[in-house]
């Protein structure tokens, strides 16, 4: 396997006038091409911070991130799915998915075709001309996933994308995410609070602990897909991750 992203001795300190937050310390992680990585940990242990540094939203205090062996640039292709509802309300589902293609000057006809293709991937082709406010929460996040993927980014960064949804919708979207991942073979970094979700989705689970935020352990998940969340092995792994998160 080829190393896609390499993170070395990463540190992040937020310096605000009121306080200094040591958000991440000594983070080392190698992510292989096409891997599905889940980041878990208690609130405030720096998961979003790591994702934001990968997305280029937040500056690195110390350490390096390289991609394909080269230092990370601001404008490499990455798709980001936010926890909040981040679609543009003034664009229809299809126009939202087309946004990244517009930025890349893809001609209109092709844009159209690609957008529909990705909407089909998230099973929303019938809702292409709907404005987001006419879609349900789960549908909106599916559009957001399609938008993040349509311009064929190398990696996908997802920060608790389905956290605000009800359990049934979330399960459905988890299965869809695995399906999309298997079809597109993208590298995915996925932050979640939900350990069952992490075991269901990830090739590996990176467990963070806080103060300062650091990696406690990286758990490999070797269960065959599609995974059964009631299988004893699944539950054993979930319990193991749960123990790691809490006792440190």
């Amino acid at each position, binding site marked *: 396997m080829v190393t896609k992203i390499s993170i070395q001795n990463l540190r992040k300190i937020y310096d605000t006038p009121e306080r200094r937050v040591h958000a991440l310390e000594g983070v080392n992680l190698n992510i292989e091409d096409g891997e599905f990585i889940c980041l878990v940990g208690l609130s405030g242990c720096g998961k979003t911070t790591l994702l934001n540094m990968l997305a280029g939203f937040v500056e690195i205090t110390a350490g390096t991130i390289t991609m394909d062996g080269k230092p990370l640039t601001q404008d490499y292709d990455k798709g980001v799915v936010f926890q909040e509802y*981040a679609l543009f309300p*003034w664009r229809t589902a299809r126009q939202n998915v087309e946004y990244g293609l517009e930025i890349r000057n893809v001609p209109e006809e092709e844009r159209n075709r690609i957008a529909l293709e990705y909407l089909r991937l998230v099973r929303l082709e019938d809702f292409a001309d709907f404005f987001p406010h006419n879609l349900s929460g789960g549908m909106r996040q599916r559009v957001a996933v399609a938008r993040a993927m349509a311009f064929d980014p190398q990696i996908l960064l997802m920060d608790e994308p389905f956290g605000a949804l009800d359990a049934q919708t979330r399960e459905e979207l988890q299965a869809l995410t695995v399906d999309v991942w298997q079809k597109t073979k993208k590298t995915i970094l996925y932050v979640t609070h939900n350990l069952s979700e992490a075991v269901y989705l990830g090739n590996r689970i990176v467990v963070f602990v806080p103060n300062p935020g650091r990696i406690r352990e990286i758990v490999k998940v070797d269960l065959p897909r599609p995974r059964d969340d009631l299988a004893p092995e699944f539950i054993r792994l979930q319990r193991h991750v749960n123990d790691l998160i809490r006792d440190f």
Partner: protein
Amino acid sequence: MQTSEAPPVPQSMDEKKKELRTSLLFKLRPIYPFIVILAIWQVAAMQARGNQGRLFPTVDAIVYRAWELVTDPLFRALAENPNLSFLDHIWKLLESPILLHTLNTAWRLPFSFFIAAVVGTIVGIMMGRFAFWESFFVPLLSVLLPIPAIAWTPIVVIWSGIGDQTVIVITAFASFLPIAMAVWTGVKTVNPVWIRAAQSMNADKMTIFRTVVLPGSLPMILSGMRIGLARAWRAGVGAEAFAGIRWGLSAGIFDAQEYLDIAFMMVALGILGLFGFVLEKVLFQPIESRTVIRWGMMEAMGAQDKKV
């Protein structure tokens, strides 16, 4: 686009008729309060006698006077020369004072508002985009905003004389202030998640401004325009009267005061009210229902109706 439109259910004739009647009655509902007020007015005015009656005309007298005001020059001309051409008809109609007053107000106000909207939007965007212009304009606008624009009338009259220009300056100024403030607030408070989303797809600053900040702040901008129009209306009507110009509805109202022509005043006031209503209907509602309401960024005005 919308799927909520279910295919129409076939109905019997009776039901259809009933529905039509109720919906017509429903649509006319906003008129009822006016009917009540007019009825009270009429009854009260009928009690007034003699000179008092002149100062408190009945509704029918006002309506008759309105008719007279509009058609008087035409009928007088027709009495002199019964075969006027069609164009002369229109020409004579336009000689009626109330129409002249109305036309003068009717072009000055939208014109001033248009200037204010353009300048206000530009200044608001500059404030929202550049820290320098923000720190330059915010103190200025905060001081100017609470001053009623009419209070500037004497100064503007001294500087620019009596005439259209004075009214236009005051009207445009009054409406510029809230528009600039609203555009600035709108640009500053665009949901940061939208901007991050655009950034994550590598949009540059200019593109983000054009494709995210502008549409994202449209609800604020439109509401600023609304306030701006209301302000323009008030200031413009006041300035007409105070600047001492000849033509304009409120100039006419103050003239009519000298002749105790209550009916004229009532007619002019009615036209003023109608104006605001029409501007709202033809300007703001179509824009809003095509943009922010369609996008779900603002509750539809109609939605409130349905709840009542």
